[in-house]
Each structure stands twice: as structure tokens, then as C-alpha cells.
């Protein structure tokens, strides 16, 4: 392979093994576009070896994943879909959210535990009625606040200016604990394309629009019931996380076939509520993938 006599350079077309070294340096968005150049480019950039090398170079995030057929563990998965680490989860708890170095798991009746993904250590939090719990992690100087919403059935009181739909699914939160500013974002499926945000300092709720339906399905509005149902599928298959200081919506799509697709949306401009899609080189994962949330950039 190394010795391939190649005059193609003279015609300008680089052989694929040379191209590999070129393309692997480019960001995922470029790779997405370049998959349209020609079929060989498409297969090169879809190859697991390429995806792995690209992830190693660009520091791709890890996903905390659980699977339908295993409720006793969560898995740290890279974007190639490989399980890097498996952590035991206390019985009956499911993955809620993660924030760089903590995974939050909870049960339907409100038991919450925090798992340290590095050590696997589990910290049980006191049960309700304590609505706020502050924990001090002795291994670092960071302080974490866990906001617990004990009832998710009356969200309309937060948003009386809107015709709200009932909150569905479990609330998901991610905490930005940089320095002294602590923010907590929470989604309860309040209304189509809205995310509830709770400011821990001010202890106030507000809402921000999520990625727009139109952005996602190439339509401008909810024209018919099918669009609405598609849209709700988007919410129920989504989790929130924080990555590189950005709020990220991780959306799981289950098309008819047996694979599962993950889409990432970054809240790139929190003031103007601009969501930017982040393109995953690999987007289809095993269909038994259930909850996912991003843990950290490597």
C-alpha cells in the first residue's frame, strides 16, 4: 500500500490512504459536507477506523448510555458506539442526567443517587421532602446543587402565559457549576420546543425554545397532526446535558429499521436561543440503546 506507484497526484486526485490523513484533521461539519464529494470519500469517512481516529484527534464527547435489556448498569460509550466502561446502578434507578463528572440516576418515586463515572462510587441522596440538596465533593472544590422537582404534574403554574401541554417524562437537569454561577436547566416537555430553565441563584424559572420543529423536519410549522406527533417523538427521545459550557440536547431517533440515531443540538447562543446541530460521524447505534446523555469532552 505504501509503495503504490501513483501518478494520480498529477491529475490532482489523491489516493484514499493519503486523503485519510487530510480529512481526519477536519471538523465533523466539514466531513459531513465532504461525504457528498464522491462515493469513495463517503465510504472513507464512514469507516470505523476513520471515525475512531477522528474522535481521538478531535476529542469527542462520551455518552452515558443504558440499554433496554439491562437496567442494572449504565455504560460510558464513545461516539463510535464502543462501551468504554460499565458502571453498576442501584436497583430501580434510571439515568437522568450527567454533568462532566457526575451521573444522576433516579427512580420514579424520587430516589436519587449520584454516580462518579471515574470511580463508580455511588452517593445516595436523602429522600424527599428536601427539595434542594447541596453536596460538597471533597475530591474537588466544586459544589453541586441538585434540584429536585417533586411533582411534575403541574407545570402550568410556571408558565401561565402559555397554553401548556402537560409535562411528560421525567425532568432532566444539567448543572453548570463553573465558579460561583450555578445554573440548572430542566426540561419537562412543557410545550413543543420549550425547555424550562431554573436559575439556582435567583431560584427562578424561565423557558427557552428548543431546536425548532422546522429546523429539524424541514417544515416551517406544525401543519398537521403527523408533524406534531413527530415533534413529540423528538422530545420523548431527548435528554439534556452540558458540554463545554453549552447546553446540549441529545435526541434519539428510532426510525423503522433496527438502528437508533443520535442527533446533538448545541445551544450555541443562549441569549438569542440559537441551536446548532452538531454532526456525529457515526449516528446509528444499537436499537436497545435507551437513555443517553453526554458526559464530557475528552
Amino acid at each position, binding site marked *: 500500500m*505504501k*509503495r*503504490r*506507484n*501513483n501518478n494520480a*497526484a*498529477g*491529475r*490532482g*486526485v*489523491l*489516493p484514499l*490512504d*493519503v486523503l485519510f*490523513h*487530510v*480529512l481526519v*484533521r*477536519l471538523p465533523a*461539519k*466539514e466531513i*459531513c*459536507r*465532504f*461525504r*457528498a*464529494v*464522491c462515493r469513495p470519500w463517503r465510504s472513507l469517512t464512514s469507516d470505523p477506523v476513520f471515525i475512531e481516529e477522528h474522535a481521538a484527534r478531535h476529542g469527542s464527547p462520551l455518552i452515558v448510555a443504558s440499554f433496554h435489556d439491562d437496567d442494572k448498569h449504565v455504560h460510558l460509550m464513545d461516539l463510535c458506539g464502543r462501551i468504554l466502561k460499565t458502571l453498576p446502578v442501584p436497583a430501580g434507578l434510571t439515568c437522568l442526567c450527567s454533568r462532566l463528572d457526575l451521573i444522576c440516576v433516579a427512580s420514579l418515586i424520587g430516589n436519587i443517587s449520584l454516580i462518579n463515572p471515574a470511580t463508580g462510587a455511588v452517593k445516595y441522596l436523602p429522600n424527599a421532602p428536601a427539595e434542594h440538596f447541596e453536596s460538597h465533593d471533597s475530591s474537588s472544590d466544586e459544589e453541586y446543587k441538585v434540584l429536585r422537582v417533586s411533582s411534575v404534574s403541574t407545570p402550568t403554574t410556571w408558565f401561565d402565559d402559555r397554553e401548556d401541554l402537560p409535562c411528560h417524562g421525567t425532568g432532566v437537569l444539567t448543572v453548570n457549576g463553573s465558579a460561583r454561577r450555578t445554573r440548572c436547566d430542566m426540561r419537562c416537555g412543557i410545550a413543543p420546543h420549550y425547555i424550562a430553565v431554573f436559575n439556582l441563584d435567583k431560584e427562578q424559572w424561565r423557558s427557552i425554545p428548543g431546536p425548532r420543529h422546522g*429546523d429539524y423536519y424541514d417544515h416551517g410549522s406544525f401543519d398537521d397532526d403527523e408533524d406534531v406527533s413527530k415533534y413529540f417523538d423528538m422530545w420523548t427521545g431527548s435528554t439534556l446535558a452540558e458540554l463545554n459550557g453549552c447546553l446540549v440536547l441529545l435526541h434519539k431517533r428510532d426510525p423503522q429499521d433496527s438502528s437508533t440515531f443520535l442527533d446533538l443540538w448545541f445551544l450555541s447562543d443562549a441569549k438569542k436561543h440559537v441551536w*446548532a*446541530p452538531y*454532526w456525529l460521524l457515526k449516528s446509528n447505534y444499537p436499537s436497545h440503546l435507551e437513555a443517553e446523555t453526554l458526559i464530557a469532552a475528552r
Partner: protein
Amino acid sequence: MAAPESGDGNNGAARMVTLISSDNTRFEVEAAAASLSQTLQLTILDGGGGGGDGIPLPNVDSATLSKVLEYCIKHAPAAANGGAPNATAVDRAELERFDNEFVNIDQSVLYSLIMAAHNLEIEGLQSLVAKKVADMIKGKSPMEIRRTLGFPDPTPEEQAEMNAHMLEYGWAYE
């Protein structure tokens, strides 16, 4: 061994090897510089390339080889220091300046160079040129890429695929 002035060792002179390009031009170069090429290093360690023998490089023409050797000669001292842990900031800045200047060349030369770096397995040069080519194609549309890299015009089928992709991933084209 890349320091002939030190005088300790083989008569104070660095060992030289001869490389022969595809068009039969002979290049005499210090073994330390040529050894930046993983491919050549083995031959040189075996004692090849010295005297009147020379190592033939049928895949590299003289214009490209002289450019490759320019890089190797410049980078050999730092490489001999094992990645130059004791290199000064000035040395590093100078190498960086050289590298930037070095790849500021015509596209066709760049392609010959990346092929040569690939065939000769010169890691540093390979990544330097790959980075340059990556910068060159960054931000271009698939059609522009095809033109830049000298692809033939797309067939109607290919064109349809390109259009479909653009429709599906519109945001990646913004």
C-alpha cells in the same frame, strides 16, 4: 552524529548517503537527514546508500526530492535530539516559520510532496502537508472540492446524489 564539528567519532565527518530520483538525479545528503524517512532509515541502518551505490527512489522526481530533502535537512537536528526537548523557543519558532514558508507552494507541488512524504514515510512532513491540504479544502463545497482536486465532472447520477445530500444536510453547507 549530525554534528560533524564536534570532531569525536568518524573522522569528524557526518556519514553521507546518496539518493537517486526517478529521473536519475543524484542527491548526496547526511544520513541523519535521510533517516527522517522511515523507509530509508532501514536501508541506511543496514549500511546502504553509501559510496557509489545510492538508493534509487523510483516514485520521486528530482524536483520533489530536492524539496523533501530541504525539509529533512532543516528538521534533522531537532529530530536527532529526540523531538528536541532542549530546543529553545527560538529554535522552535524558527522551525515553525520554516514550515509555514515551506508549504506556501503551488498546489501541484503540494500533491507531489504529500505523495512523497507518504511513500517515504516522513511523519512530520506528512502531517505538515496534510494540514496544509486540509486548510485548502476547508469551507469548500463538494463541487469546489471536485474542481480543486481535479475530479472529472460528476455524472448525472452523482450530481443527483450531491443535490440530495445538500438538501438533507443544508446546515453543513452554511
